[in-house]
């Protein structure tokens, strides 16, 4: 979440004070991303340094109002259309855990998958309850909660796909049964290094 650009967006509506910016940021993002006032002022200072906002210079601290500059507006407009970096796969901790669990003796990878699946579905239940109870009249909250639900859902779907793929692979004899005795030269450390080196 770019706090910097969210603040620029709020300032494009007119000059505002730091505290006001914090309140508006939280309400516009459905209060899903809490923001402390220190973060607001640090960000404003940097924006001012970069020439994207200017203060009227009259007040001090909370009394100081900020407004967006022309280059701030240009920056905001550019950011809106700049795709976030999704091209290189993130080093996903969950993916690594499943990859490690496949080869680890004495570990049932399906059980590991289910632990994470349950946790994710439980989180989704909590978000859905928030949507059900509070988001009816709060469009920002509904949108932010939807985004979180779709994100978690994609992880659950990956787990489901992994579960199915592993089951088929075990059927084809591609992977060894989990509960093998641990040997001195078990392949795990090598596997781990290889995974760790990725991304």
């Amino acid at each position, binding site marked *: 979440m770019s706090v910097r650009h969210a603040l620029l967006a709020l300032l494009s509506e007119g000059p505002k004070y730091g505290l006001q910016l914090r309140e508006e940021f939280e309400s516009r993002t459905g209060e899903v991303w809490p923001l402390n006032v220190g973060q607001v002022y640090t960000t404003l200072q940097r924006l001012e340094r970069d020439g994207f906002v200017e203060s009227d210079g009259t007040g001090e601290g909370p009394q100081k109002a900020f407004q967006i500059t022309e280059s701030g507006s240009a920056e905001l407009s550019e950011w809106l259309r700049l795709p976030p970096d999704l091209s290189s796969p993130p080093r996903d901790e969950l993916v690594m855990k499943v990859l490690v669990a496949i080869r680890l003796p004495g570990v049932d990878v399906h059980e590991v998958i289910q632990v994470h699946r*349950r946790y994710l579905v439980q989180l989704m239940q909590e978000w859905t309850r928030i949507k059900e109870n509070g988001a009816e009249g709060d469009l920002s909250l509904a949108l932010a909660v939807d985004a979180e639900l779709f994100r978690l*859902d994609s992880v659950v779907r990956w787990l*489901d796909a992994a579960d199915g793929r592993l089951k088929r692979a075990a059927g084809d004899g591609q992977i060894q049964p989990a509960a093998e005795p641990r040997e001195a030269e078990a392949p795990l450390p090598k596997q781990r290094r290889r995974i760790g080196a990725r991304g």
Partner: protein
Amino acid sequence: MSMLELKAVSKVYGQGAAQVRALDQVTLSVDEGAMVAVMGPSGSGKSTLLTIAGTLEEPSGGQVLVGDADLAGLSRKEKARLRRRTIGYVFQDYNLLPGLTAAENVSLPLELDGWSARKARASGLAALEELGLADRAERFPDQLSGGERQRVAIARAMVGQRQLLLADEPSGALDSGNAEGVMRLLHEACKNGGMAAVVVTHDAQLASWADRVVFLRDGRVTDQTALEPGPESLLTPGRPQ
């Protein structure tokens, strides 16, 4: 009070080498007012669980109670009555009768149960109105959108004094907005109407509307979630003031 109870229920199809164990010692209890989702991959036994709970199939072993009725002790006629009066079904493909209007589709189960046509129609219309479909009552299924058809099917499953709602991928054919609408209605029917519901799905977003999610794998219940009270905590942890 528990509205549906499965105690060590098993279902075996076929014999010998061709034997398939669709359900294996499944124990599940659903209270009045609760919505339980059953999640699992295809072939995990989800639909079998639903047909057994709905008295459409007999278990090979174990005990099934709907309300306080033990299904094993019921005659065919008594089971049929239970299906007409107590249990409502919602299917992925709606299963509405194409030659009947929405109102006729909804009041049909009541008429089959011996209600007068007038009384059945009044209840049917009330159920449609409750689901926001009052102005669609005289339309035929093919004159309704997918979301509307499924709402008619839900009205049909709730009409009368039904207590147990069984749904098989109820929003599988709908877009996400309509799917959410359907799940919201089902959850409200439980929360406010006191019904118990079992929703079978492979979709985590739909399952997340339930109070409890039960995971089924190879015919066995392997795990379940429990929703802690006060889910709003998600919005507050570590929240700077």
